[in-house]
């Protein structure tokens, strides 16, 4: 176990000529809940996707639990990891998407069982029991055999969280988990996330929910134009932003 669950050093990422991340430095301790806020296009989702190698970084270093993401260092040379090794790293990291991305041809319980059975080769009976417990934990014990198309957005997102937890990840990434939800469904998803934070899960949450950041977050990072503009205790940053860009952004969303 390393000191930091996630450590980013001067992370750069470009899409073609567009530089999206211009040197991100940050650390996330185990059991920390870090909320990342900022205007759209600021690079916060891209940074999140870099952490489990859905995007390749162009410069800098990114570590998860002390391990370099996507590469192996031999001497002063970096070697790309094989697809299977990347997959092995991703098993340890849960991710929840804005658009849920449940598998539409599988029921809720099949969605949850898929990765433990196919990837970790665990026994079906054992996984089925765990999936039932997870559905219970997100308040959907009665929806086990429902297909995603039969669930509301909030229910789908809670199944998606259960699906990620079924792999027993040491880190959970949330990419605007409530942005695609009708306002009255946001609360039920945030409630599940709060419970998860209380249980000691390390979480990085890209969000526009300032109330959640204030209440649950241990730290808050404000990103704009590919850099971390300001970070610190969420209550302090939200109450008394130091930087003009933070002030301008918060005045629009609060």
């Amino acid at each position, binding site marked *: 176990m390393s000191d930091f669950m996630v450590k980013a050093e001067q992370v750069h990422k470009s899409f073609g000529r567009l530089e999206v991340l211009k040197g991100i430095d940050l650390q996330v301790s185990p059991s920390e809940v870090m909320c990342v806020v900022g205007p759209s296009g600021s690079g916060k989702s891209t940074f999140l996707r870099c952490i*489990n190698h*859905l995007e390749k970084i162009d410069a800098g270093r990114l570590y998860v639990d002390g391990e370099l993401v996507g590469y192996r260092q031999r001497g002063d040379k970096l070697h790309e990891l094989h*697809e*299977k090794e990347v*997959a*092995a790293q*991703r*098993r340890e*990291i*849960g*991710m929840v*998407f804005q*658009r849920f*991305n*449940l*598998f*539409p*041809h599988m029921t809720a319980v099949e969605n949850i069982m*898929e*990765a433990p059975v*196919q*990837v970790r080769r665990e026994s079906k009976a054992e996984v089925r029991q765990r999936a039932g417990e997870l559905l219970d934990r997100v308040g959907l014990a009665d929806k086990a055999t*429902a*297909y*995603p*198309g*039969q*669930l*509301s957005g909030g229910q789908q997102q809670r199944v*998606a969280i259960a*699906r*990620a937890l079924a*792999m027993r990840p040491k880190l959970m990434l949330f990419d605007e988990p409530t942005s695609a939800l009708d306002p009255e469904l946001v609360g039920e998803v945030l409630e599940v996330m709060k419970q998860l934070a209380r249980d000691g899960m390390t979480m990085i949450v890209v969000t526009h929910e300032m109330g959640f950041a204030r209440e649950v977050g241990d730290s808050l990072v404000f990103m704009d134009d590919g850099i971390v503009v300001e970070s610190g205790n969420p209550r302090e940053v939200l109450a008394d932003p130091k930087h003009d860009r933070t002030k301008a952004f918060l005045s629009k969303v609060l």
Partner: protein
Amino acid sequence: MTTSTQPRGRPEAIRAVPVRHPGRWLAAAVIAVLVAMAVNTLVYNPRFNWPEQFQYLFAPPVLTAVVNTIWLTAAAMVGGTVFGVVLALMRMSPNPILRAASWFYLWVFRGTPLYTQLLIWGAIGALFPTVSLGIPFGPEFVTWQTQALISAAIAASVGLILNEAAYMAEIVRAGILSVDRGQHEASGALGMTRMQTMRRIVLPQAMRVIIPPTGNETIAMLKNTSLVAAIPFYELTFAAQNIYARTYQVIPMLIMAVLWYLALSSILMIGQYYLERHYGRSERTPTVARDQAGE
């Protein structure tokens, strides 16, 4: 319906004069005359020679040809689909050599007529008189005569499979591309490899897009099997030709083949209807409104 209309009672039902459609009557009259003419010729033109047709319809040589047509269609579609999936995956591979090879294959097999391809398969022995197993450019361990090894049946199935694979590859690729990118990302984030993602997540969803055109391909294949007379392989059309070469009953034998093709393609169309209904059913589409209304 608002309650305010209730006290005044329901107004009298509208009884308007319908719009006249003289064009429809005219079209019906023309069609009726044409149908009458067709029936007349079918019944009274002796050159259809119906007795002879019915005599051959279930004759052993014709039934053999029908069976050959059916298994050739099935073999071509199964083989073409399997190879087509491989070609589609190659076409979308990150490996540029596999991509190029798949592109080249499609270019050759979609860019040349099936009939010409089948003629080449029929004459393959002229190009490669022997077939050997060994090390490329090195020693050969076993050698066969091509003519003996590749029968007409094998040449016919191989020719149809290789051609069909090129078309199935594009159908499969379209199906795979129809699946949302988020599905790849979600399964990747769960630690699944590309092959696992393809097999467990993407292909099952792609089936809805793949099935309908594959049904059309199967019906087209049933008819395309008539081209393997080029090899030559004994199927339905070839059987008809065989018989009329002897009896000079050209039209009756061709009509007999037509009846068989229609019967077989009707069966396929019925199968396609049920398959599409199966894959288009609503369990996977949003039913939130119904669900909530029920609770």
